[in-house]
């Protein structure tokens, strides 16, 4: 089967990772194989330049966990499935309740956010109003029956 080798520069928890394709190579499974964590023999002599691969027959992306150079211009690699990238289209279409978001348009600023750091110290703003009690001498009010 054919395996596509990539260089992945994105974190695992990234939807639509930044992948740079290196090349397509022929691969064979090493023995009884777990699809979520396969061991493959690649017809490839150089171990450098890639850290990620895609198995078209299985429809899944994998992160490389180990590499071993073999005689005869071959390599043995082990990988672990990346379901976030493998099912990116389905994830992107998911309706979700965003608890937090980086996008300002998704912010609900009037909802309390306990993660924003606030000092216990306070600042004081003052709005000065009008003088209510004037400097005049006032009145003497006399009440008589």
């Amino acid at each position, binding site marked *: 089967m054919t395996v596509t080798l990539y260089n992945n520069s994105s974190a695992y928890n990234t939807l639509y990772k930044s992948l740079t394709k290196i090349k397509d190579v022929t691969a064979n499974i090493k023995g009884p194989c777990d699809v979520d964590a396969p061991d493959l023999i690649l017809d490839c002599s150089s171990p450098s330049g890639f850290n990620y691969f895609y198995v078209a027959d299985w429809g899944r992306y994998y992160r490389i966990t180990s590499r071993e150079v073999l005689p005869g211009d071959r390599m043995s690699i082990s990988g672990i499935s990346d*379901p*976030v990238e493998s099912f990116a289209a389905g994830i992107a279409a998911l309706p979700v309740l*965003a608890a*937090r978001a980086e*996008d300002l348009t998704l912010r609900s600023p009037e909802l309390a956010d306990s993660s924003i750091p606030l000092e216990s110290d306070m600042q004081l703003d003052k709005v000065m109003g009008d003088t209510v009690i004037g400097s005049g*001498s006032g009145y003497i009010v006399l009440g*008589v029956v």
Partner: protein
Amino acid sequence: MAIQTETIIDVMISGVKVDEIGVSDTLDNYSDGDIADFLYVGSNSRILGGNIDFYTNSAGSYDTWNAGMPFDTGAVTSSIMTMKSGNGVYDCPAEGRYLGIILLHSIDDIYNDYITVSNQNRYVALTDFNAKKFLLEINAVLTQVAGAGATAFTDKTNMLYNPDFTSISVKYNNAGTYYNINYALVPYHVLEYGGYLFLIHAFNENKTSEFRCSFNQVPMWNAGSVYYPFSYNDISKSISISFNGYGFGSDWSTISPDDLAWSYNGSSIEKYSDSDYVWIRTAFSQRQFRCYYYFKTYNDCMMMFANSGMYFRINGDTVFKPLIDSNVVYGFTDQLDTESDIDNYDGSTKHDIPVTPPTPPTPPTPADDDDNDDPISAAGAPFAAGLAHYYAMTADSVLLQHVSEAMGTWDIDTSKKDLYRNLISCKLVKPPAPIPVSGSEDFTIYGVVPEYQGAGVKLPVINGNPTATFGPYSIPRKFNDFRDYAPYTKTEIYLPYCGWCALPSHVVGRSVSVHYYTDIIAATVKAVVFCGNNVVAEAAGVMGLDIPFAAENVGAKMAAVNSALLATAAGGVQLAAGVGSTVATKSSAGLKGAASGLSQYISGYSQMAMAFNENWTEISGKNGDGCSIAGITDIIIKITRPKTGGNTSAPYVPAGYAHNVGYVSNKEITLGSASGLVICDNVDASGISGATDAERAEIKRVLETGIYVNSPPE
């Protein structure tokens, strides 16, 4: 549904909210705060909005009105006004004036509307009445440059005669098209609940560059007298006017162009001024009725407005005049020479424009079926003297000395004189406004004129309790988020006479005003803080001291007490004035400068106490509260906000906060529509096809701990 002329005028004048008088079948389509707008637009423009139509007399024949008002391009009828449900769009083929309603929505609402509605026949103005982050108003006219429908709009704004308005870009659709909206910030309390903002752009287009009117009609339940601020520029060039009328009822078939023209200068706008205010009076005249409005500037940038009512004509040529007394419309008459307060606003009679502070409008009984605050109002008590006569003299007046001497020299039996002295109460008061007096009368006791050098003493008669209004004072937001409210931000107001008072959270971002009501007889004062029509705080205080009226040397005592109070006011000393007590307490650090005055005060007070030891009694009740008339003299609003750890510019969060922590959202989205970090709540990943349970569980875990969303590869 056509509304008859009488009904509309009744609405206008009675101030009854429209949806309370039987037309709710149509008007219920509105949200609170709908806006009616007379728009002047250029050719090939489009007005968005809906809900109320106004019709002209004939199709296109009237030169200052376009046939068929917005949202209805059908045959023009003679109907004066129809209500329509739903919202519409009206293409304005020709330059001219249009009428319509524009709904007010929040930025979020309009954004959502526009990304989900393909045809842009929705709203164009923005606001909200919960006064959160929402901006306002007013009219937006989008230029249609080619084609039809949503995609025809560009970001070009075509708002005429609107130099004051600011422009804002609002996202138009998901593709990222933007358009501009002209808007103006309007104080929250201008609109209030059930408010309608009418905008009228000058009918006489030759004058539009000089005179522009925005008619603000809120709240409808108090049409008799409404004071609301509105923007004010140069009186000679541009003015925005608020008023509380609703709609226009008339027989359009008889209208001539002159009837619709606004008078805008010369004798039609009269300007009065004194040291505090500038008053402007103008008349909106149509053949069927005239409206007179008053405008008052203050604080250089705000205006107050009072609607004096209107004349109107129904049943042929009969002209009716509203009968107004103290800003209350109590009837109508066709006898035009009948006395009515409306005549006070008629330039042909007199110009006795009142200068008393505005009285807070009386709120309606609200239907408690929404999330809005129910307005709570307050009013002062009337002056009730009962059997007694009350006189006001300035503290340095010699009149009291004369009264004292008259009592002292009165040649009657001592026991009778003592009895008479018991019938006199005497107070030193410092009210927040002058005590209203009317004329003077002889000093008498129990109907008897004491002898005083052979003549009586004339005393000025009190005929009311003084009231005063201060503000409005704007309480600004800082963070524009939850931190502007409790428990993070605390707002307090210092009310002279009364002390510090906490204000509720929702005043932040709004304005408050303070109304003082007084009771001269009790020498008490109540300060009521309004936010719009709502009472948000109140406090009581004392504005005077009971002074014993002794036979001898009373004038010297008055002088000593008054002098002490003046001196201590400067020093910030609060004096305890419980009757029978001689305690003076220090409430601030400014005591030193007042030491001299305080000494005099104590001296005077000791004399008072001595006088009380003579077992004098008082007519009215005694003061039991602390007397704060010598405390802080100014209103102060104190806003205590949290510090933000050195993050001193908006949005006042640490650098990288959005990317690494994310803002609180709580919005339902399609994940792919977001960008950057999203932390989801309780993800349901069952809809992901082809994934194993383990993979779905892992996807759920990642989304709930935070995922960074990039754009999909091309």
